[in-house]
């Protein structure tokens, strides 16, 4: 349902052009769950932003349900049913959680805002009338961000490190929520994550490092490798293959 073809993303740096993404090729099937993982700075969020239209690729094409959407802007892609939960969601002075969620649900009155917040582990009545400003903690903001995506009954939803700042209990709930929306709306889900609980949801695990797709594998083989190596460094696999120098793998 989504294809990235030879995607390159370069920015001008101090020492000339720098390729954030190099020849990314990915093909996502409808109704599957993908987990993208890999070292910090590897290019995961950039891939997500290319999908949402926040970044325009320097070269390559984005195809969605057979349509070339490379030239479409963010709004047009949103209207096609693509959504992206930001890694670092912005805050909005003067806009209430309720208002933000209503913008997300649009005209769909079926969706109950309270249920939505419960799905991300927040107690609804405490939050609906709060502003999406600096009074919210990082974890609260992150959960509200996720709720704005769940609210939208999407064809393709990309979640960027949803685990950040979220306690274990809520996290368990969140993992179930991903499964639920996947089952209920047949949403194709991409989750950028380093969490085992999330990796376990994956039909496929995509490792992105150094601006490239380093490997696409099954969760079984990916998780087995981690255990075998007895390391919590998810990028170890990549390091061993020489994709990035081991020296940079110090987590």
């Amino acid at each position, binding site marked *: 349902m989504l294809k990235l073809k030879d995607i390159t993303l370069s920015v001008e740096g101090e020492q000339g052009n720098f390729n954030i993404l190099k020849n990314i090729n990915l093909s996502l099937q409808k109704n599957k769950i993908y987990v993208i993982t890999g070292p910090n700075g590897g290019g995961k969020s950039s891939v997500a932003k290319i999908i*949402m239209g*926040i970044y325009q690729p320097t070269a390559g094409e984005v195809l969605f349900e057979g349509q070339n959407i490379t030239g479409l*802007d*963010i*709004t047009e*892609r*949103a*209207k096609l049913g693509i*959504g*992206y939960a*930001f890694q*670092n*969601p*912005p805050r*909005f*002075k*003067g*806009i209430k959680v309720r*208002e933000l969620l209503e*913008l*997300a649900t*649009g005209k769909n009155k079926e969706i109950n805002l309270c249920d939505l917040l419960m799905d991300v582990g927040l107690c609804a009545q405490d939050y609906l009338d709060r502003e999406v400003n600096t009074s919210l903690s990082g974890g609260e903001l992150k959960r509200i961000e996720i709720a*704005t995506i769940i609210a*939208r009954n999407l064809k393709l939803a990309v979640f960027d490190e949803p685990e950040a700042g979220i306690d274990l209990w809520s996290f368990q709930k969140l993992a179930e929520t991903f499964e639920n929306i996947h089952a209920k709306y047949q949403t194709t889900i991409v989750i950028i994550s380093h969490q085992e609980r999330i990796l376990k949801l994956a039909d496929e695990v995509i490792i992105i490092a150094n601006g490239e797709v380093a490997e696409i594998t099954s969760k079984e083989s990916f998780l087995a490798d981690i255990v075998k190596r007895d390391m919590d460094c998810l990028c170890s696999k990549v390091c061993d293959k020489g994709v990035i120098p081991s020296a940079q793998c110090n987590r």
Partner: protein
Amino acid sequence: MLNAIDKALLEAVADLHDIPQGAYNIRKNGVGINRATTANINIVTKGDKPGIDVFVKPFTKGESVHIPVILSAEGLEDVVYNTFEIGEGSDVLVVAGCGIHNPGSKKSQHDGVHDFYVRKGARMKYVEKHYGQGEGSGEKILNPKTLIEVEEGGVVELEMVQIRGVDRTKRDTQVILHKNARLVVVERLLTYRDQTAESLINVDLVGEDSTAQIISRSVAQDQSRQVFHLNMRGKNRCRGHIQCDSIIMGQAKVSSIPEITAFHSDAQLIHEAAIGKIASEQLTKLMSMGLTEKEAEETILHGFLK
């Protein structure tokens, strides 16, 4: 007496759909046209100069005074002096506001000087909205001057809003706070085209344990200009906080000049000022929920100025 334009102006500046409840004085094109008093609130025309004296009896609770001004002809220069005596222990809402409909090419100007004496333990919320409209090229000018003295334990909340259509404004607000007095000022301002707005707020924290908070939010669009001088002087044990936050767009220019001065070692004063354009992540976030760029911008500005 009130025609459709008058009613539109009244709605914009005082949320009034018709004649208000409680005490009121409506001034149109330089003359008072409508007035009502209550058992606790009296309004008297000044003898020496244009304007009114408003007397709120001590311990009057939950009543309101509306004193809107409307200008609906071109070439008017209206100056008015209003004095308010807010009696001890009372709790009232005062809604002022000026709406200008300038149909012609000559300027219309209203300079309102408001003097408030907020007596011991009284609470007053003062709402002042400014609004301009009219198809003519004539400038719409509003220069309010507000002087407030708050006696011991008094609480004053000021809400000053100018959202549309005022070409030039120079507002001057001076507040003196005595012992335990409290002040909250919320100022919201939007300018566009070649409008200019200047706001000067001086707060003197004279009394022990007085507190003041000024929250100023503004949006400057097109080629408009805004200048804020927000000044707090702590002359006793007191607390003061200025937050001045502006969104700048187009070729606008915004100056924010907060000033805090402590004359006492137990004065705690903070100022924060920020000017910046709309964060691109805010726009992309809302667009990724299906809003167009323009809708996203409007949503952000609307929230910011709310």
